[in-house]
């Protein structure tokens, strides 16, 4: 009984239930995550982004900066 519980615990804790996921699918999970974050960034209201700026300029738009970051990391994970 105790052994069965321990085995079940190991199965859950070690993510054995995800062992069947292929490496290609796992990589896609990461890539989709970056895209999802990018979409969320785009949804942020501009008023919030520019809070604290005296004069709004397009290059002070932090959404663009964040999308640049995400593009960089997306390419890195796509290649490797």
């Amino acid at each position, binding site marked *: 009984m105790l052994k069965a519980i321990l085995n079940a615990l190991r199965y859950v*804790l*070690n*993510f054995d239930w995800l062992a069947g996921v292929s490496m290609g699918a796992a990589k896609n999970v990461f890539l989709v995550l970056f895209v999802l974050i990018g979409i969320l960034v785009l949804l942020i209201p501009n008023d919030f982004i520019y809070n*604290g700026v005296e004069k709004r300029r397009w290059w002070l738009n932090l959404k663009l900066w*964040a999308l640049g970051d995400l593009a960089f990391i997306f390419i*890195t994970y796509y290649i*490797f």
Partner: protein
Amino acid sequence: MLGGLDYVVVIAYLIGIMLLGFYFKRYVHSSEDYFLAGKSLPFWAIGMSIVVSDIGAQDFVGVSGQAYRYGIAVGNFDWIGSVPAMLLGAFIFIPYFWKAGLYTIPEYLGRRYNDYVRTIASATWIIFFAFNLGVVFWASAKLLNTLMGWPFWQSIIITASVVGVYTFFGGLAAVVLTDVIQLVVMFAGGALIVVLGLYRVGGWDGLVDKITTQGHSFSDYFRLIQPADTKTPFPWTGILFGLTFVMANAYMIGNQAIVQRCLAAKSEWDAKASMVLGAFLKMFIPVLVLFPGLIAIVLYPDLKDGDNAFPLLVKELLPAGWGLMGLMFAALLAGLMSSIDSMLNSTATLWTKDIYEKYIRKDAPDRHYLIVGRMATIVLLIFGVITSPVSQYFAGIYVAIQTFLSFFQGPVFSVLMLGIFWRGTTQWGGLFGLLGGITVSALLYIFKGYLFQIEDPFLYVSWWSFLAGLVIAIVVSLFTRPHPDERLYGLVYRLAEPKPNTAQVRA
């Protein structure tokens, strides 16, 4: 060994940094000046400081050692282990922290939950930083010993003396603005060794060819995503759940040493921009700290301890006496000092604001707290020096640091996240979530040999302890009474103080 011009470079660097840090003494008149640089810092300085504080000399040694053993998968810590978390911090957490006028993250937890949560979180960070100081000191001593043959204690005491002087006098402004110089020096030195190393092994193609002809498969060393059943500490499941969802966020959002800089920004926009810039700069770090490990696989295929890879590479690639070895040496010192000064200043802030001012002496003149902060800096420095030999009992320095972190990070992040996103989280939910999560973390770590299959399950431990903290906090919150909305204004996402209506204004 250093020689000739190398000594000139190193000595000029040390004196320059000390003088620059000491210069900021003139701007320190209050505790806010000392702990938050008078809320005057621009985004670029904070962004650069965040990066260099997070990456130290120990990463040159530890990460290249890990890359030597496991390949580029260790780069996950600086890529996916930083960028998403820093964006989350920039757009969700940091603006709330900055507007609330906080000094520390536990202060937020105290306002959001209660003083017990604040004290536990603060004490946890103080203990972590204090012991981490020892790890960082030992890593540097190991490096200086291998490179120059300096005795361990001599290295530690020289480093501690230089950092101690400017951190003691200049406070956060000195820490951040010396960090800007440290980053430039660190990037220059790191790039030097990578360029020379790649040239020696025939460029990127040569590196890949030579590693694969040694019998390793390409996927062993050049894949960021490792299988779930890998024996390395970096299975993709751990990277996704443990690192991306928990440890990265906990480190970038709940880490006093990182967030304190953003709290010192001169505007809300600067606070947010500093994190976004930091995320960009952070993506270059693996090139500096990871590539030397890969290059060393080609040049020294039979090393027993991967942590020796980087020092050996420096010795072989850089000529002594021409200043290049000095520049590399200065880069390592830059990484080392920027980590130590951050930990010192942050721990002094936590101690002064969350413990001393709260429990030992309330309502003292501001000057008193400034003195307490400075004294705490010195005491911590001495503690770090004395405890540094403990870290030698861990096989890999980098894994040792992450193991310490995983113990506490998950539970702390769970209550931080619930606190900002769910107004229904009660003070008791927060307290029991934190304590329960830490208990689960400790149990998983103690019984890791029976429960986990991978070599070092710190990523899994952080995920499961986070989940435990989350569940416990939610369950307890459902049975206890939350704070009234008036107390939570400005502390919970999208819960702003209602604007008075026109009739009230006229009245």
